[in-house]
């Protein structure tokens, strides 16, 4: 059931367009991430949903209600900020109670809710501490508790983990997702960290230059990138430059060797120069097999990373990177050795846009 609907959202700043042609529908209880580099418009979009920015055009509906004309304090949202934004003059308990007091909830209910939230974030022993007495991770947990204490209909998180170190980020990530699942709150999560987006989301909106590049599940985004930007931004990627041989058969030539894709190359012409995406984990060092593509080249670089061995194979113009697991029984190949790389047609993706 559609809970949050954003239609043709647009935001123009002086001299630049922040967001354009933004359309999504979010289901109730869904966890959706806005992923993209700095300046792509993800935070601007989030702030328009929150009410801190006024859209230039477009509609935002929450549970069927148009909220564009409403102030943030009228939208029943909870928001978690990158800088935590805890009120320095209030204790942890007072911070959590803030929204409840504004809503004039009974004192008994407020006390119970504070205790419940503190248990949920596992910090009941810190209820009387002030924000300056907490670590970054603790502050962010309190910020989360404060945001959801009032049972908002929508939870918005603006890069909440980016100020924390990697280890705490990883553990908080799981906690946030677990909490969200338990409470069933519709959530929008803004991040530039692809790992976060892939690990936490039901769906991801990949953005670039104010536009949606692709909307899909983490599996779709990673394995079926629709544009070159998505393919290169999410995960590491090999981009093979070649030319279309037979669009109907789905064949192409890369460095004078033929490759085959799993579907016809629609919208292309024979001889057209195009690029093809291939994930390193889809490539293996193996001789030609039926139903798989095989390309011959020379090993240009080998990096032993412990459990993973990263190998780069030079074809002619193209350099293909592949990852294999360390094999104790056989050492990695050496530079200069001839090699054949193999991959399934289904692992190849035609990228948008002609090559120069």
């Amino acid at each position, binding site marked *: 059931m559609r809970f949050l609907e954003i239609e043709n959202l647009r935001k123009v700043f002086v001299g630049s367009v922040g967001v354009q042609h933004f359309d999504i529908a979010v289901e109730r209880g869904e966890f959706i991430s806005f992923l993209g580099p700095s300046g792509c418009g993800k935070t601007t979009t989030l702030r328009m949903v*929150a*009410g*801190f920015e006024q859209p230039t055009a477009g509609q935002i509906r929450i549970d069927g209600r148009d909220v564009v004309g409403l*102030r*943030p*304090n009228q939208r*029943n*949202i*909870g*928001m978690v*900020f990158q*800088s*935590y*934004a*805890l*009120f*320095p*003059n209030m204790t942890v308990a007072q911070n959590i109670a*803030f*929204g409840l007091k*504004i*809503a004039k909830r009974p004192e008994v209910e407020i006390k119970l809710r504070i205790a419940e939230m503190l248990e949920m974030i596992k910090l009941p022993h810190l209820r009387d501490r*002030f*924000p*300056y007495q907490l670590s970054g991770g603790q502050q962010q947990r309190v910020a989360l508790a*404060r*945001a959801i204490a*009032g049972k908002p209909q929508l939870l*918005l998180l603006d890069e909440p983990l980016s100020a924390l170190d990697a280890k705490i980020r990883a553990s908080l990530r799981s906690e946030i997702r677990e909490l969200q699942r338990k409470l069933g709150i519709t959530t929008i999560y803004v991040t530039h960290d692809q790992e976060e987006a892939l690990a936490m989301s039901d769906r991801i909106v990949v953005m670039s230059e104010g536009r949606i590049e692709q909307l899909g599940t983490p599996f779709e985004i990673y394995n079926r990138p629709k544009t070159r930007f998505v393919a290169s931004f999410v995960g590491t990627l090999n981009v093979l430059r070649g030319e279309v041989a037979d669009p109907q058969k789905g064949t192409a030539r890369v460095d004078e060797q033929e490759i085959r894709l799993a579907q016809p190359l629609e919208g292309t012409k024979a001889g057209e120069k195009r690029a093809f995406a291939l994930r390193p984990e889809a490539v293996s060092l193996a001789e030609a097999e039926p139903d798989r593509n095989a390309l011959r080249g020379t090993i240009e670089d080998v990096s032993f990373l412990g459990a993973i061995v990263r190998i780069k194979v030079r074809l002619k113009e193209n350099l293909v990177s592949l990852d294999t697991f360390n094999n104790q029984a056989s050492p990695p190949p050496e530079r200069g050795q001839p090699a054949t790389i193999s991959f399934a047609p289904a692992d190849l993706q035609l990228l948008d846009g002609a090559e120069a």
Partner: protein
Amino acid sequence: MKRSRIGPWLALGIGTAYFLIPLIATFEFSLRLRRGEYSFDAYRVVLADPKFQAAFGYSTVIALATIVLGVLLVVPTAYWIELRLRRLRPVVEFITLLPLVIPAIVIVFGYLHTYNSSSLIPFTATPRGTDLLLTLGYVTLALPYMYRAVDTGLRSIDVRTLTEAAESLGAGWGTILFKVIFPNVRVAILSGAFLTFAIVIGEFTLASLLDRPAFGPYMQLVGANRAYEPSALAIVAFIVTWGCMGIIQLFGRDRRAAMPAH
């Protein structure tokens, strides 16, 4: 002692002497009321004088009113500038510095011309009206100090994010100002408040020309008619001012560090 350290110590010594010697001399003179021995008689005379109590009490009340009005004017203004109108900051800063360059006597003559008993807004027609005019005049004189103190305090917290956090939790502007902003600039407000208090207690020009029974004109009157008591009064006024400074320092040691500013 290394040569490089002599210079700073010498400068400090000369500065301290320049400051302390007249003070010590004034204090010493104030103890000479009783012939042949030092005593605090001049202080007893001054502090027991009903006119002193009335003048000091009057100035204290006016100072408190000035502080309240100043805070109510400056804090929301500085907050709004910080939140939404940063481009206007240089203009507002210029305006708040004007009282430093426009002499008090010019301000009060302007007041008398504009608000005299024959004008459209006859503040000076009644004593209470004149008290109000005096308070507004003091708000103007204290503006550079109050604004600067509050602005510094606001810049040390992330005003925008705190405001947005409060708004996202359902707070309106009143709640944001009084429950979030004011408490987090409390120290800055207090600094401005005590500076204002020190200014008002010692101010002479406005109070004298508006003919109000304030402490400044009282000190001048005593100085014109007595010998030792004015020195005692000067020391009392000095203690009051330094007391305010000390309290600012005390409150300035607030350990609850605010959020880092953006």
